């Protein structure tokens, strides 16, 4: 999966599951302060990402380190690569 595909698919999760306008979905957007998610919403985000990418995400330290949308892209890329290894 290419970086562009991961970005496009992740953004679609934010648009469809969270009704966030595409214009706000920038890599440096902070998911808490800019996009308005809180710690409870992260659980829904993980569920939506799992469903969209067909991967299993453990809500471990790596998830808790996510701050920006760019962090989400990188995290998904690592999970996808990890699965392929």
């Amino acid at each position, binding site marked *: 999966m290419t970086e562009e595909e991961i970005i496009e698919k992740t953004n679609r999760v934010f648009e469809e*599951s*969270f*009704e966030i306008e595409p214009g706000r979905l920038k890599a440096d957007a902070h998911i808490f302060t800019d996009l*308005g*998610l*809180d710690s*409870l*919403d992260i659980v*829904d985000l993980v569920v939506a990402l799992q469903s969209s990418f067909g991967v299993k995400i453990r809500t471990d330290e790596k998830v808790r380190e996510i701050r920006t949308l760019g962090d989400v892209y990188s995290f998904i890329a690592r999970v996808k690569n990890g699965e392929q290894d």
Partner: protein
Amino acid sequence: MFVSLLNFFFNFYFYLLFILAVLVLIPLFTLYVALTRTFSNHRSTMRRFRRAMVWWGKTVAFIPYPFIRFRYELNGENDTKKSYIFICNHRSAVDAFLMKVLPHEFVEIVNDWPFKIPVLGIFARFAAFLDIRSMSHEAFMAKATELLGQGVSIVFFPEGTRSVDGRMGSFHSAAFRLAVETGTPLVPLCITGNEIVMPKGSLFIKPGIIKIRQLPPLAADDFTGLTPFTLKSRVWKIMEQELSAMESTL
């Protein structure tokens, strides 16, 4: 200078009567609930106790009348036999007292500081007001669900803190998660004028008019299939538009 002097006397008058009310009414309310407890069950006692707290709110709100007045506008239903989740914007420390307009039995979701207020903090704890910061999410949801099941409504200030500049802050999602999981109707309560009467960071009150507009409930059918985040975004937009409309007519 003259206005400052008037404000000083107004505050002196208010706080003097407030302290007198605490000294006289709080023991009376306590005695009333304690006496009626002897011939009623726990559930009836709690209902009566929460009603007494509403009467306390009404008393506090009456003290500064007519210098501070309240306009409560009800749009839509107000069925006291149902439990609701009330969503309020938060601009002032007086907001907790403003809930006296609600005819429902309710508890408020608060941070830890209201529990630290002498006397009133004990009452808030006894009335089962919930300190959301000291509870795990699971414990909070279990207790809130139990209260809703008993017919007790729950009042949230989902911004979590008072607004500094009057603009509504982003919402935390606990209230909306509770609504989605329990199918409880959500009722937005829009409040303006409170930031003038007692601005954040001040204990001085000023004369003014506080408007409280209760919007029609969003029934469970209205948010079927929505995530808590999506629901909170929609409610935020509804309230933001309503607050703008209210402020343009002040």
